[in-house]
């Protein structure tokens, strides 16, 4: 690989371990932005420079720069936090953010609308709550996901322990974060003394995502991660070890068939004591083999397709010094959450609440979720767990607290039931804050679901679960290519429709129709829902039916994603 390195590689190289000119840029009061190169580096610190795209033209007229603000993403392995941490983040959002919380598809908090002059205060408050934002974004290991299901409890604990161990092991070691945000002392000339034993000076070629899951639930969408660990139980229900899956990833670019979503391949099995070493080896092979010249070809999935899975596995095994075991049998049922109360151990129970598109807010004249969850956090004494589907679980509720929590939910309008279609839907943030968005997502999906709910009900499917996911661009934050109904923004008000993914997250979808507006989406899906209702076999899922009935071709691997697209049924 002697091709020219991508711009980001030079920025990282010159950044003195992620410092760049961030400290000066953050202090510069006359602009709400930071320098272009620093905007790349700040991601490694868990922040994105964004602007309110709704206001762009108005502000040009007013001779004001774009309405810049930062998105802050917290690092929260497995989505688990204490009530005190929930309260701290809630307070930061109200004081410095836009007054809402966003629960993400990777089980963590995002705060939007934090202006530059409030960044340090926000990060310091996050630090005071024993949380961090380091490596929540950027070309590093991101937030490690873990199955939030409490059952079976020992498996859940093992999964969370592994997620945390991997997180700690793969954290960047640079003191830049402490220096810039927490007023840590900068040691003059100390840059040379920094060691990033795993990442080196230029970190990874691209973002890196890891998940840990406990079958039969695949709520973590394990095949969409660069690296996944699938819990395998022994006969006694204890953890025997982990199947290792590599090479998943969602992102692609419209019109570039060299880019495609890919699902991870299971390459072997390891013991718990070996898992962190396996993670490090997978990360360092990608560090050394990944494409640093072309960022849209830099994820591990392309490294593996270019080098071959066998060569990749062999190199991982060479680095860990032992062969991986043969993959153990496992099976998944669904990627969704179980809503409502479930029983845990020691008489404690867990409540999973639906949070539409992960947006926690007080709706004027509607449900007061921000306030309601704050009230619960004030009385609750165990944990909050964010789910991979942007929902929240109030975990470990003592029997005597159940009534209190239910009363708070009722009082704040949080006990209404959403339709099954809505509960199985999720959207990325998109407009107005995300710089990548080509179309609406979070702000539009609720209306689309309302329209689709009518068609679903008309065809008698209101008791069926169908997974719908929408993103404002093809990068795939809401994992649309493993949704049974995937909608990906193409331009303002226009979406590509993907169908044929499996309900358990084990098969990618296929492009069915392009550039659909709202009416066309409903018009296109209506006959498919009708056919599903009339022709399906018992227990057959919508995504599976789409393929069996011949509406779309099956996608068996990422490289086939762009082949045989479009409707496969004449007329």
């Amino acid at each position: 690989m002697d091709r020219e390195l991508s711009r980001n590689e030079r920025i990282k190289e010159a950044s003195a371990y992620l410092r760049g000119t961030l400290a000066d840029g953050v202090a510069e009061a006359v602009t709400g932005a930071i320098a272009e190169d620093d905007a790349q580096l700040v991601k490694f610190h868990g922040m994105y420079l964004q602007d309110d795209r709704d206001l762009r033209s108005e502000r040009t007229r007013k001779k004001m720069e774009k309405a810049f603000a930062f998105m802050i993403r917290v690092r929260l392995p497995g989505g688990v936090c204490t009530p005190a941490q929930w309260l701290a983040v809630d307070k930061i959002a109200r004081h410095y953010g836009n007054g809402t919380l966003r629960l993400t598809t990777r089980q963590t908090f995002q705060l939007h609308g934090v202006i530059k002059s409030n960044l340090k205060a926000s990060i310091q408050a996050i630090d005071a709550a024993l949380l961090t934002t380091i490596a929540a974004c950027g070309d590093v290991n991101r937030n490690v996901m873990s199955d939030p299901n409490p059952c079976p409890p020992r498996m859940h604990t093992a999964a969370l322990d592994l997620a945390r161990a991997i997180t700690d092991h793969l954290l960047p070691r640079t003191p830049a974060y402490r220096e810039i945000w927490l007023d840590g002392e900068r040691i003059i000339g100390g840059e040379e003394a920094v060691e990033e034993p795993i990442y080196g000076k230029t970190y990874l070629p691209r973002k890196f995502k890891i998940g840990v899951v406990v079958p039969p639930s695949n709520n973590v969408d394990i095949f969409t991660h660069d690296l996944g660990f699938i819990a395998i139980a022994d006969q006694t229900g204890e953890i025997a070890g982990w199947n290792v899956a590599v090479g998943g990833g969602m992102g692609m670019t419209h019109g570039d068939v060299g880019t495609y979503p890919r699902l991870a391949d299971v390459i072997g099995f390891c013991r718990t004591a070996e898992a962190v070493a396996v993670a490090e080896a997978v990360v360092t092979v990608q560090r050394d083999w990944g494409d640093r010249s072309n960022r849209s070809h830099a994820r591990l999935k392309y490294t593996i397709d270019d080098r071959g899975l066998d060569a990749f596995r062999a190199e991982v095994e060479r680095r860990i010094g032992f062969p991986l075991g043969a993959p153990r049998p496992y099976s998944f049922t669904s990627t969704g959450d179980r809503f409502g109360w479930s029983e845990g151990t020691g008489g404690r129970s867990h409540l999973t609440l639906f949070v539409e598109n992960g947006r926690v807010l007080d709706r004027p004249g509607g449900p007061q979720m921000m306030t309601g969850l704050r009230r619960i956090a004030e009385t609750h004494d165990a944990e909050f767990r964010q789910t991979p589907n942007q929902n929240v679980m109030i975990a470990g509720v003592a029997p005597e607290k159940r009534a209190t929590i239910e009363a708070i939910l009722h009082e704040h309008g949080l006990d209404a039931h959403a339709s099954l279609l809505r509960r199985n839907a999720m959207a990325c943030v998109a407009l107005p804050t995300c710089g990548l968005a080509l179309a609406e997502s979070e702000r539009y999906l609720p209306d689309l679901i309302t329209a689709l709910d009518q068609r679903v009900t008309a065809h008698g499917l209101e008791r069926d679960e169908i997974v719908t996911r929408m993103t404002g661009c093809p990068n795939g934050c809401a994992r649309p290519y493993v949704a049974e109904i995937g909608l990906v923004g193409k331009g303002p008000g226009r979406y590509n429709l993907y169908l044929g993914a499996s309900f358990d997250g084990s098969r990618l979808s296929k492009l069915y129709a392009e550039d659909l507006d709202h009416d066309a989406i409903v018009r296109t899906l209506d006959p498919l829902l009708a056919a599903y209702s009339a022709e399906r076999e018992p227990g057959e899922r919508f995504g599976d039916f789409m393929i069996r009935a011949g509406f779309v071709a099956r996608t068996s691997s990422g490289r086939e994603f762009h082949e045989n697209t479009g409707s496969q049924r004449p007329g």
Partner: protein
Amino acid sequence: MVGPGTGVAPFRAFVQERRALGAPGRNWLFFGDRQFTHDFLYQLEWQDALNEGALTRINLAFSRDTPEKVYVQHRIWERRRDVIDWLDGGARFYVCGDVKHMAKDVRAMLVRAFADVKALGPEAAEQAVRELEDGRRYLQDVY
């Protein structure tokens, strides 16, 4: 130049004039309003003026961006050594805008700044500001 809110209007003209004339010398603007994002009036012009050297310094106070309210007088206090230094060097102190609170608060803060930086008693500090006024170096257009 201390011109929060619409009080910034004459200073925009000051800076435009100095730029047109290629005026040498230094100038310093304290601007404030409610929110950085929505109320930073003529933001792009101030950025250009800074880049071109038509404006030497700017300090900003946005009162609604944080739980604690911050006004221009607080920014003057934070930089009181430089402010007094500039005045000792012959600078003029212009104030434009709200007569009810801002103008009084800014003047009181300048008195405090003199007292602190020059280790003066309250009366001597008051006298220092009065001398500026008498010498037409503390000038106000407040309403």
